[in-house]
């Protein structure tokens, strides 16, 4: 915010832009160097298997990214998701590591560009005549190319996207051309397929090595998630772009590796040994043999790839730093947006400084390996985050994509990425030392900047008042209008007083999806009034907290409050009718009662409420899981109001003696209760009796499968027709509820 004017990131990236960014980042310089080496130890068949399996593992993680990016389309990508799931220190450290990995990768790509360019120039006479040392030329060129892309990123997002498109088209076009040419080539020279005769010469375990060695070529699609805030229609385009990129890049790699293997001219030496001898230039030599001008083509492709990846890493590292700063964990200067350019310019300068410093000063190989470790660990955490977020907040989030076969796919990705990150540890212990050192610096920064952290959920909730001591048992009353606020609060307070709990009075202010949540604050006056009115009905005997939640839907707001405040009992009001015939109580009430991870009481205020006294309570029941718990509630209310209790049951053809025997444990829970057994159909029997009482309490009954019921047929019919106050009780303590709480809830 500057001069009272809100400045946001511009939305200029389409599906094609996003795909080009993702593919450009994935087909970085790594694949040109790593593939040759990998063929050397895994063999011609081993590299194809390694690419296919790496592609699949990358696709598993890509699905996690796609799901999270569709639900949380904010700048920051992996960092935002991990922070959303784990909060606090883990969130900060993941962002800090992610920023490091991206900046270091940027340095690596700058150096790679310079190396290939110098390699190309060394073939020309004029460059050799200059007499410049290759090492110096590489460093100067790396600095120059890094500065060019920093300047391009400073110009703005759309401009970045256009440059990116051109570069990625160039590199994809080159690789695809080489791959397709190899297919034509194999028809002309079928004898070249003999290169695959020794498919995995060093055994299948080397394939795993090749997977670890080339996995770096399959990371980079997360850059698409970073661009979530700048994407057009992000809920659809971001997941699609992520998934398409991985599929396209895997096919490209497979074709490229195939082309190199059939193109190679190893003579009498086995093909894998030929690649092992040539090392990083193996791919270049093989493509040179495959087609005329192949050497030039592959060098140009490598230059295209490194520049494309460099551009994407400058972009992503800037956005990650921006997001960390925006969350108040680093100085606010890094989240300032340039009013004209609309880019976070200070974050861009900070990232650039690290890219330039590392490119000039540090041994790039070890730092690059540590970036690999960090990427793998971050991806692993993202897969854990997708499970945690869907289980805990799935109901509240508005997903654009939900991955199939959840949670098996993210679990598989976690397993494989853990193995690969350990493998990188075996390759370079120094890389692990660098990673740990960077984490320690991060911890120091985190501690020193702790005081300046902004409060979480700044725009999602607001405390109106907070009185009394917090207690272990929390009862939440959701109030929406002044008419029933008092009734609901009175019942909730009575229970809280008896069980020694505290009371939370909550109201939800909603705005449509198109309106940012922070704007909901403007419409909060009425809700604050209702919460204060509800508070006025309390006696002051229990601790009371009044909170306003801002949400895009009542359902999500209440569910968010229930989870956020770890509520044990939720008290809701019902007018006695549903606006839509397809819902039992109402669109929100139905879903809340079904999915709330706590006990729920729905109160339908009746004509006896004005008296404010409860002298007689009717408790219709036929036993069951909810009946015993409901009996405890009845006993509690009866003792609070000194009321009589009648336990009513209809025979419905059952033997009376057996029925009394079955209901004995229920009746015993209510001291002084009278058990009344009547003939006839339950609903009419209860309705005939309820007029004689002030309050009717009914527990939920077992729900028949495939029937649209919330509390059960009898309680719902009675609640609809009875003119007295009715309390519908649903207990959520059974094993099914526990499993539900543990393994996840229905997402709509």
């Amino acid at each position, binding site marked *: 915010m500057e001069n009272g004017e809100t400045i946001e990131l511009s939305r200029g990236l389409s599906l094609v832009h996003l795909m080009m960014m993702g593919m450009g980042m994935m087909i970085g310089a790594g694949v040109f160097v790593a593939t040759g080496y990998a063929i050397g130890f895994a063999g011609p068949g081993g590299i194809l298997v390694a690419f296919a399996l790496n592609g699949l593992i990358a696709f598993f993680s890509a699905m996690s990214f796609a799901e999270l990016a569709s639900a949380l389309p904010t700048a920051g990508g992996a960092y935002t998701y991990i922070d959303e799931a784990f909060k606090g220190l883990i969130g900060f450290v993941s962002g800090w590591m992610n920023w490091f990995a991206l900046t270091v990768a940027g340095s690596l790509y700058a150096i790679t560009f310079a190396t290939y360019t110098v390699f190309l120039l060394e073939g020309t006479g004029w460059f050799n005549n200059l007499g410049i040392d290759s090492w110096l030329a590489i460093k100067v060129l790396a600095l120059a190319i890094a500065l060019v892309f920093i300047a391009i990123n400073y110009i703005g997002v759309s401009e970045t996207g256009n440059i990116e498109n051109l570069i990625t088209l160039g590199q994809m076009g080159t690789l695809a051309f080489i791959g397709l040419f190899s297919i034509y080539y194999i028809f002309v020279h079928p004898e070249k397929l003999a290169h695959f005769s020794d498919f995995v010469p060093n055994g299948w375990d080397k394939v795993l090595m090749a997977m670890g060695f080339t996995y770096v070529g399959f990371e980079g699609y997360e850059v698409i998630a970073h661009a979530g805030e700048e994407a057009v229609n992000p*809920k659809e385009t971001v997941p*699609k772009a992520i998934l398409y990129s991985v599929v396209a890049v895997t096919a490209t790699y497979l074709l490229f590796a195939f082309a190199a293997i059939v193109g190679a001219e190893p003579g009498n030496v086995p093909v894998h040994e030929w690649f092992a001898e040539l090392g990083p230039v193996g791919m270049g030599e093989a493509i040179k043999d495959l087609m005329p001008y192949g050497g030039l083509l592959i060098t140009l492709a490598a230059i295209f790839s490194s520049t494309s990846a460099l551009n994407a890493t400058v972009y992503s590292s800037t956005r990650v730093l921006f997001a960390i700063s925006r969350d108040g964990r680093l100085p606010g200067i890094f989240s300032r947006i340039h009013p004209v350019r609309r880019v976070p310019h200070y974050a861009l300068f900070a990232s650039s400084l690290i890219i330039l410093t590392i490119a000039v000063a540090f041994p790039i190989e070890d730092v690059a390996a540590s970036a690999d470790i960090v990427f793998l660990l971050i991806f692993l955490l993202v897969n854990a985050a997708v499970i945690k977020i869907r289980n805990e907040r799935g109901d509240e989030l*508005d997903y654009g994509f939900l991955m199939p076969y959840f949670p098996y796919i993210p679990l598989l990705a976690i397993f494989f990425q853990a193995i690969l990150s350990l493998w990188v540890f075996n390759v370079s212990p120094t890389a692990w030392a660098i990673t740990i050192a960077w984490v320690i610096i991060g911890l120091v920064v985190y501690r020193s900047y702790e005081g300046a952290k902004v409060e979480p959920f700044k725009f999602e909730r607001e405390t109106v008042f907070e009185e009394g001591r917090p207690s272990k048992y929390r009862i939440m009353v959701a109030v929406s209008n002044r008419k029933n606020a008092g009734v609901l609060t009175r019942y909730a307070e009575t229970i809280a007083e008896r069980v020694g709990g505290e009371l939370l009075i909550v109201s939800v202010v909603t705005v449509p999806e198109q309106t940012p949540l922070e704007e909901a604050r403007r419409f909060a006056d009425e809700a604050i009034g209702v919460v204060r009115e509800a508070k006025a009905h309390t006696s002051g005997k229990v601790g009371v907290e009044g909170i306003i939640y801002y949400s895009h839907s009542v359902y999500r707001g209440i569910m968010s409050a229930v989870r956020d405040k770890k509520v044990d009992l939720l008290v809701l009001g019902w007018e006695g009718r549903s606006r839509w015939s397809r819902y039992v109580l109402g669109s929100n009430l139905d879903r809340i009662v079904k999915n709330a991870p706590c006990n729920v009481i729905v109160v339908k205020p009746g004509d006896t409420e004005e008296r404010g006294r409860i002298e007689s309570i009717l408790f219709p029941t036929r036993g069951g899981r909810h009946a015993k718990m409901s009996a405890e509630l009845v006993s509690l209310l009866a003792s609070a109001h000194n009321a009589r209790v009648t336990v009513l049951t209809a025979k419905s053809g059952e033997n009376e003696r057996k029925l009394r025997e079955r209901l004995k444990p229920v009746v015993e829970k209510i001291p002084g209760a009278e058990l009344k057994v009547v003939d006839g159909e339950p609903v009419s029997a209860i309705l005939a009796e309820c007029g004689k009482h002030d309050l009717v309490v009914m527990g939920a009954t077992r729900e028949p499968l495939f029937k649209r019921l919330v509390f059960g047929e009898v309680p719902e019919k009675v609640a609809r027709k009875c003119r007295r106050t009715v309390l519908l009780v649903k207990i959520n303590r059974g094993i099914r509820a526990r499993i539900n709480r543990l393994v996840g809830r229905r997402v709509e």
Partner: protein
Amino acid sequence: MNIDQILGATIVFGAYGFMLYLLHVSNRTIAEMKRLRVERRRRYAKKRIGHVLEVQRDTRHRRR
């Protein structure tokens, strides 16, 4: 073809085929969720228009 080649080809085509299958399922999910989103937006717009018309009717009625 030897056993390694058969196994290798099966893994390569199997892995890529499975990836394509997952992409197909994912695309279907994205399309379905988009449809639900559009439907929800339409319902909301309809409700808003209904509300505005109701307010207009009331205002006209009061003026008369």
